[in-house]
C-alpha cells in the first residue's frame, strides 16, 4: 500500500468519538440457496457507520452493493449475519429511515409537493400530510433544492434531475435519522449529476444525518463521503475502507485538487486489481 493511502487512513477525532449507528455484522446474501441456481450476491460483510457520518459504498456494477443497502433498509432479508441500527436489531423497514432509490419513484398522479408529503400519508408519523407546519416544511425543502415555482408540477412535467430533487425532499421531509441512497443519480447525465451532488451536499450539511450512499462512480464517492468502502466484484465483500479528509462545506472545485485525484487513483487501482 502506498504511503499516501496510509496517510489517508488518519481518523477524524470528532467521528472517532461518535457512536456506532449502523452495525453490519457478517451480512451475506445468497439467492436460490440450496438449488442449482444458487448465486452468492454478497459475501459475508461487516462494517460500521458512525452517527452523523456520510459513508459511500463504492463498487462495480453488479457487485451486490445495492443488495447490501436494501438489506440495511430492511427491504431485503439477509441470508446470514445481523444488522443493527441505532442499537436495535433490524427486522423490517424502519419508519425513521429515509431512502432514495435509483429511480425517483414518484407517484405520477401527484404534484411535486404532494409527492414530498407522501410519507405522511403512507404511514402515521404523528402529523397528517395536511398539517400546515409539514406543508411549509415540504415547500421549504423544495425551494432549497431549487424547485421554487414547481411545487404544483406533476412528475411528467419535470426533468430527470428535478424528479430526483423531489425524491431527496421526500426522503428528508420526515427528518429521518438515517439516509440510505441507492445510486440515486446514476440515470442522470454528467452535468446534472454534478449539480445533484452539490444539491445533496448542501442538503446534507443542513440536515446532518447519518448517511449510506451506494455508487459506482469513484469521483462521486470521494466528493460526497467522509468514508469510502470499496466492494469487490460478485460476490461482493469490502476490500478497502478509507477516510476522505476534505473539510466541509465542499465545493465542486475540490475535484480539481491533486489530493482528490490521488485518492481517486488509489480507489481505481483497488477496484481494478481485486483478487477474485
Amino acid at each position: 500500500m502506498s504511503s499516501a493511502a496510509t496517510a489517508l487512513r488518519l481518523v477524524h477525532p470528532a467521528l472517532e468519538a461518535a457512536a456506532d449507528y449502523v452495525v453490519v455484522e457478517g451480512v451475506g446474501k445468497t439467492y436460490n440457496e440450496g438449488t442449482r441456481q444458487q448465486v452468492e450476491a454478497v459475501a459475508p460483510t461487516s462494517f460500521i457507520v458512525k452517527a452523523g457520518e456520510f459513508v459511500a459504498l463504492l463498487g462495480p456494477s453488479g457487485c451486490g452493493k445495492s443488495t447490501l443497502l436494501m438489506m440495511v433498509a430492511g427491504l431485503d432479508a439477509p441470508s446470514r449475519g445481523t444488522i443493527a441500527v441505532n442499537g436495535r436489531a433490524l427486522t423490517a423497514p424502519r419508519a425513521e429511515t429515509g431512502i432514495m432509490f435509483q429511480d425517483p419513484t414518484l407517484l405520477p398522479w401527484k404534484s411535486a409537493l404532494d409527492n414530498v408529503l407522501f410519507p405522511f400519508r403512507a404511514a402515521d408519523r404523528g402529523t397528517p400530510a395536511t398539517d400546515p407546519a409539514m406543508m411549509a416544511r415540504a415547500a421549504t425543502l423544495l425551494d432549497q433544492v431549487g424547485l421554487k415555482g414547481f411545487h404544483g408540477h406533476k412528475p411528467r412535467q419535470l426533468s430527470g434531475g428535478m424528479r430526483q430533487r423531489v425524491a431527496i425532499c421526500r426522503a428528508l421531509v420526515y427528518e429521518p435519522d438515517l439516509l440510505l441512497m441507492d445510486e440515486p443519480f446514476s440515470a442522470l447525465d454528467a452535468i446534472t449529476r454534478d449539480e445533484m451532488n452539490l444539491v445533496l451536499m448542501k442538503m446534507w450539511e443542513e440536515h446532518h444525518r447519518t448517511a449510506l450512499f451506494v455508487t459506482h462512480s469513484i469521483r462521486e464517492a470521494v466528493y460526497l463521503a467522509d468514508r469510502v468502502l470499496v466492494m469487490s466484484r460478485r460476490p461482493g465483500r469490502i476490500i478497502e475502507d478509507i477516510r476522505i479528509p476534505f473539510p466541509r462545506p465542499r465545493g465542486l472545485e475540490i475535484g480539481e485538487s491533486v489530493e482528490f485525484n490521488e485518492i481517486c487513483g488509489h480507489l481505481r487501482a483497488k477496484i481494478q486489481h481485486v483478487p477474485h
Partner: protein
Amino acid sequence: MTIDRLRPLLLPTAFGAGLILLWQALVTIFAYPKVILPAPSDIWTVLLAELPTIWQQAVPTVRDTLAGFAIAALFGVGLASLLSFSRLLRDAIYPLIIVIQLVPKIAWTPLFIVWVGIGWQSRLTVAAFIAFFPIFIAMMAGLESTDRSLVRLCRGLTASTWRTFWLVRFPASMPYLFAGLKIGITLSVIGVIVAEFISSSEGLGFLILKAAALLRTDLILAAITVLCVVGLACYGAVHAGELAIRRWQGE
C-alpha cells in the same frame, strides 16, 4: 388547427354518411323490397313516427343496462381488490373465474330466468354477469401490474397493506379499470337485449322481436338506430369518467 383537431370526428362521420347515401342510392335504383331492406329514408320516417313508442321501450333497456353495469363494476372492482389482499384467495378463486369466463356467458341466460324469474331481475342479472368479467379481469391486471418500485417505496415508508392499496395500487390501476369498464358497458347492453329477446314484455329487445314477427324491418332498424345512440351515450359516459379521472390524476 381546428380542422386537424376535428379530423378524427369528421373523417368517420363523412365516411358513414357516404355509406348511408350509397345504401339509399342502391335501394332506390334496384327497387329493393322494403320488407327485406328498407332505405335509410324509410327508416328515418318510421323513427320519427314511432319515436314515442321506441323511447318508451328504450327506458327499461337503458335502466337495466346501467343498473347491471353498476352491479358488475361494484363486484368486479370489489372482488379484484379483495383478491389483491390475499395470495391464498387469489390463487384459489382467480383461475376458477378465468375458466367460467371461457364459457359463452349468453348460454347462462335461460338458467338465470329459471333462477330469478322473467322480470327485470333476470335482465339485470344477465347484464351484470356478462359485464362483470372484463371489469374484474382488467382491475385484477391493473392491481397486479402496479409499478413494483412504488410498492417497494411504500414498504420502505412502513406503509400498511391497506394504505399501499388505497394510495398507490388502486389509483395506479385506473387506466386498466377504464379499459375494462368500456368493454363492460358494451357487454351490459348486449346482455339486456339478449335477456329481453328471451323473456320480456318491454324494452328495445322486445320491440325488435315483436317487429320481426310483424316483418316490420323498418321498425327493427329504427329501434337498432336508437340502440346505437343509447350504446354510444353509455360508452361516452364511461369515457367522460375516464377523462375526468385522468385530468384529476394530472395526465
